């Protein structure tokens, strides 16, 4: 479980995160939602430790990240997998080598065992075998996301972070990626935190949702609760499209 307690983050005169607290449970797809510029990416980067927070605690199963030394943070990060918005696959490596990379850096197993593990991960995300030796630039955006998921789970992480996992994908591929993240979360009991502003994703896999507005936690609940909330900012965000207005009416 990851616990965020009274977190503040300030860039110069800009108070980006204001006293945010939340618990992200293991085995659940936790979602951080909010409009662009609301501070959700800063919150995720702060949780991972890419931004140093000004105040508060970020606990990974009791281990407070801001108190840790860099060497301890590096060890903790071996328990973390991350899916980036743009996949962030290494251009110079093939698909298979990308998935093998964390294993080669941190596991002490033989090359054959590493290759087997990488192939298992690639099979888990349903990547066709003919693409294993292709460069990331030679495969589609959806396939790149699958490879990134395979790389993220290769070291069997306890914590998985996904930053806008559906960005740039068509609705069908988005759904497949969402389902894949959800399945992996439940299968391996991972603490998953997903950063998104895609309401389809929220409705599909959001088990625990946090809504960030202007750097503050404006709402917290489940996807079922979202239809019955009297929060103006949340309603503006969630029901911005005509489709979701109709869904809301149907639910009420």
């Amino acid at each position, binding site marked *: 479980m990851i616990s965020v307690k009274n977190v503040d983050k300030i860039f110069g005169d800009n108070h980006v995160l204001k006293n945010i607290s939340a618990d992200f449970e293991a085995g659940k797809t936790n979602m951080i939602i909010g409009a662009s510029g609301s501070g959700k990416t800063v919150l995720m980067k702060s949780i991972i430790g*890419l931004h140093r927070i000004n105040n508060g605690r970020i606990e990974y199963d009791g281990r407070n990240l801001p108190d840790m030394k860099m060497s301890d943070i590096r060890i903790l*990060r071996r328990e*973390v997998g991350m899916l980036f918005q743009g996949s962030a696959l*290494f251009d110079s490596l093939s698909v298979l080598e990308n998935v093998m990379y964390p294993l080669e850096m941190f596991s002490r197993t033989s090359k054959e065992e590493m290759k087997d593990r990488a192939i298992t991960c690639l099979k888990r995300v349903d990547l066709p075998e003919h693409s294993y030796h292709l460069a990331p630039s030679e495969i589609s955006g959806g396939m790149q996301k699958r490879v990134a998921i395979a790389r993220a789970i290769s070291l069997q992480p306890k914590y998985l972070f996904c930053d806008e996992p559906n960005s740039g994908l068509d609705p069908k591929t988005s759904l497949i990626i969402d389902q894949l993240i959800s399945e992996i979360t439940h299968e391996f009991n991972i603490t998953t935190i997903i950063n998104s502003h895609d309401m389809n994703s929220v409705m599909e896999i959001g088990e625990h949702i946090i809504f960030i507005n202007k750097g503050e936690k404006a709402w917290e609940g489940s996807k079922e609760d979202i239809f019955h909330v009297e929060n103006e900012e949340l309603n503006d965000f969630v029901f911005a499209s005509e489709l979701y207005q109709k869904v809301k009416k149907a639910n009420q």
Partner: protein
Amino acid sequence: MNIFQDTGKYTLLMKRVLVAPDRWRMFFRQLPKELEKLGLQSLPIVVIISIFIGAIMTIQTKLNTENPMLPTYSTGLVTRDTLLLEFSSTILCLILAGKIGSNIASEIGTMRITEQIDALEIMGVNSANYLILPKIVAFVFMMPFLVIFSMTIGLVGGYLVGVFSDIITTADYLLGIQYAFIPYYVFYSLVKSLVFAFIISSVAAYYGYYAYGGALDVGKASTNAVVNGSILILFFNLLITNVMLN
């Protein structure tokens, strides 16, 4: 103010770069790739520039020393010493600052803006060490070979002037390049080249590593790497020359 900030950031980056790699196996996998990319792939440009500069220098020296008081071998001697002392180390490094510097800065800068460096950091990898150390080691290792190669090819360029024109005889030229040879000049040149290689690779890596924004910013990082790398080369050239030749 910026210069102090940059110097501080550069020093902190080098502190992260110049440590033992997390995995030596990964380092030795990267090293041959960098040796090939930064060293061997620079050979064609080194050959082309050195042969032409060697030839041009010979012609210009001959035309500017048309004096019966000067011995006939002086053209070869001046060409050799200019190549050894300045061209094959400093000028060649300034040219390579453009080629290698922009290559390193744009490669690392692109990795930064496409979040590949963040991905390494999140995996718990010392990204600065993993990405930059093999480049510095490879380029510092290859540079003396490139310099010696440039000296040789430059002298061959001068010799070809003797062969294909009547500006100078090959016998005078060959006598000139052997006359009063001071081996220390080669040592001085190699020491300079090692320092310059470190400057080119580390400064370019610094600008690439701290690039942010988009493609335009990677271009800016690349330009900054070349300009500031070149200025530092000139500054250290003066410093080393003062120390080693004074």
